[in-house]
């Protein structure tokens, strides 16, 4: 108790120290403002235009900065930190190439509504527009992929801009906000006065729903014979998992959660049908297609979920709950729109909701489907199957790890064979589908969750897009467990070329990749390889026991496909079942 109050006091002292109004440089204002926003870790990479900012960090012990080996690693790490903690992720890069190296990461965060504050340096204001060394119009370049952006032209504006940026990033529909700071602005001295209020005339997200609309939804539930809840990332981002659980318990409506919604409701819940869409469960897809009421809770009807839009949920009355009004009716015509924060909407709905009484036969039908059509694969005693490896990871981490994935087949297997029980446990690039995201995002997730096991599941392709960040894990002893499911091929592209392009395998062979064990060891990360089940279990358990970072390469079967699969352009009940047929 006394220790705790001592820390609290010191925190207060720190805040007092940081908020002290005094004449300081723009760079110091930036650092102090970040600290006052509660930032405990920044990922970044220095360069010419941010030299003043990095100079201000020198000897500033309160400020924690992690030097990545590439700006892309920095922003994906900030993203993993944000997704796994719910706090705003922060990264810093210099002007020009430093800033443009962030673009993929900004787009990744934008597509999945992840709160980031991205700080870039720029050339001095007098040089802007002259094609100066390392000049890039990063505000212009990123306009379509940021929620908002600032070019700061006066150091006095910095405290306000930073406070606004954090507010915008982490309220409403969350997203990345970019702050571009010219070099002379980070150098200039001005009186620092912390800003705690936000006055943005053009920004008022609708949090509280229209009561009439919620009533309409409740009446629709009472009448529905075949209701389905489609739950997306919005439920997790608004922190609504408990409200969702209560809503499901009260209404007894079967649930499917999108890839980004996994963990919003424990996957083992008896009403959980798994995730829908291109590689989702037979039950979830079939239920959506047969539903007479589809309640979308914080999902955006992405094409990987809906398949062919004409013919999606053809018989369903559609309710759509979303904080972003522009999502409602964008892809799927909506009968009952509810604009509001998912948590707030569900809190209200929970005071009114009753059991969907007309849906008993439907619930029985769903249980029958779930029992007869689970995810299935043909196991092997001679080759390692990637699905088996994911199951092994699940079993040995008690289903309690934070799992980050890259993009491709392994991503789908992770979603299929690692049943998530808690929100913010799956960190994956759903919207943009960014290869290279999986491993660096795990570094951020571990920084934000020092007490949890963080497993990063990657393919042999994506791992090579950001492998350089192994250095960070080794240097700072960040105990991420890096899994590489090595099938020596770009597996998802191979699968499409096999099934849709008549086995014309074009430029997918990754033979000649480095020896991943040697690669890991070269960076100082304990590394293992497994080629059969016995080795797999042994080395994986050793990796988990190892107190620092570890890398495990699982050599898995090359020709394995992800099933079920809804071919692009088909409705989601047109599933290829593959092995599981």
């Amino acid at each position, binding site marked *: 108790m006394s220790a705790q109050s001592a820390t609290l006091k010191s925190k207060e002292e720190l805040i007092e120290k940081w908020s002290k109004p005094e004449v300081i440089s723009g760079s110091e204002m930036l650092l102090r403002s970040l600290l006052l926003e509660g930032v405990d870790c920044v990922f970044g990479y220095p360069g010419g235009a941010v030299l003043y900012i990095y100079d201000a960090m020198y000897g500033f012990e309160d400020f924690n900065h992690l030097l990545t080996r590439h700006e892309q690693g920095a922003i994906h790490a900030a993203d993993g930190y944000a997704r796994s903690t719910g706090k705003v992720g922060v990264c810093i890069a210099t002007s020009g190439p430093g800033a443009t190296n962030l673009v993929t990461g900004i787009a990744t965060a934008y597509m999945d509504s992840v709160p980031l504050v991205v700080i870039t340096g720029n050339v001095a204001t007098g040089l802007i527009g002259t094609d100066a060394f390392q000049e890039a119009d990063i505000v*212009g370049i990123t*306009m379509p992929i940021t*929620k908002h952006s600032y070019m700061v032209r006066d150091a006095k504006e910095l405290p306000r801009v930073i406070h606004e940026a954090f507010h915008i990033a982490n309220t409403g529909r969350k997203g990345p906000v970019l702050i571009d700071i010219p070099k002379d602005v980070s150098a200039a001295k001005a009186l620092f006065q912390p800003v705690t209020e936000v006055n*943005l005339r053009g920004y008022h997200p609708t949090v509280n729903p229209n009561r009439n609309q919620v009533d309409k939804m409740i009446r629709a539930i009472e009448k529905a014979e075949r209701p389905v809840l489609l739950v997306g990332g919005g439920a997790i981002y608004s922190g609504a998992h408990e409200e969702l659980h209560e809503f499901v318990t009260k209404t007894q409506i079967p649930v499917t959660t999108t890839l980004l919604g996994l963990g919003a409701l424990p996957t083992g819940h008896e009403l959980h049908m798994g995730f829908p869409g291109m590689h989702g469960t037979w039950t979830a897809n079939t239920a959506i297609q047969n539903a007479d009421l589809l309640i979308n809770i914080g999902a955006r009807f992405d094409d990987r979920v809906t398949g062919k839009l004409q013919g999606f949920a053809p018989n369903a009355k559609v309710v759509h709950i979303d904080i972003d*009004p*522009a999502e409602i009716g964008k892809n799927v015509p909506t009968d009952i729109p509810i604009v509001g924060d998912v948590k707030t909407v569900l809190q209200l709905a929970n005071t009114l909701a009753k059991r969907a009484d007309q849906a008993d036969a439907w619930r029985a039908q769903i249980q029958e489907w779930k029992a007869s059509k689970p995810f299935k694969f043909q196991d092997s005693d001679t080759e390692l199957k990637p699905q088996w490896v994911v199951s092994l990871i699940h079993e040995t981490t008690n289903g309690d790890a934070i799992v980050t994935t890259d993009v491709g087949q392994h991503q789908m297997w992770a979603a299929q064979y690692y049943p998530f029980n808690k929100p913010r446990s799956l960190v994956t690039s759903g919207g943009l589908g960014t290869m290279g995201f999986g491993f660096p995002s795990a570094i951020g997730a571990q920084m934000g969750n020092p007490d949890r096991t963080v497993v990063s599941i990657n393919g042999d392709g994506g791992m090579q897009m950001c492998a350089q960040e192994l250095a960070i894990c080794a240097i700072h002893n960040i105990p991420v467990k890096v899994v590489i499911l090595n099938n020596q091929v770009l597996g998802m592209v191979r699968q499409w070329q096999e099934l849709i392009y008549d086995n014309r395998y074009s430029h997918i062979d990754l033979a000649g990749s480095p020896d991943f064990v040697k690669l890991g060891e070269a960076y100082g990360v304990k590394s293992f390889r497994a080629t059969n089940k016995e080795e797999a279990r042994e080395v994986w358990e050793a990796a988990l026991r190892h107190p620092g970072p570890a890398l495990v390469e699982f050599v898995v079967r090359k020709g394995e496909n992800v099933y079920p699969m809804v071919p692009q352009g088909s409705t989601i009940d047109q599933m290829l079942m593959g092995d599981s047929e």
Partner: protein
Amino acid sequence: MNTKHTIAILVNDQPGVLQRVSGLFGRRGFNIESITVGASEEPGLSRMVIVTTGDDHTLEQIQKQLYKIIDVIKVIDIGSSPMVGRELGLIKVNAEPSARPEILGVVETFRAAVVDIGPNSLIVQVVGDSDKIDAMIELMKPYGIRELSRTGVTAMIRGAR
């Protein structure tokens, strides 16, 4: 059904705000027939008027997407109310001295104005709704239009609102 819509957008007078708005139209495949920007009644705010074509679904998406821009304060679908829409056109037309009386006759009928007279050309200024400008252009064509410049429509809802 695709129809013409006139939208007024009140925006913060910030660097890049035109790019934010026009970029949104571009990347989401919304059409811009004309765009005008200028000061509004309130210091610090500008008013844009955009004429676009699209069906009702597109119009709804345009308005919702515009509201997501932090610098956008208000979006008004002017076309859904009785409105005044005005455009200005400058037409430089061939006009040998012998042809001038005829042209001046047209100009007078349209309540347009001649704002410059050259040795063998005139600049005609015409103000009105887009149809009127179109009609004026048609009438000037036989003389030979050398240069044409239109401002695009600016507009307001009629009455007290």
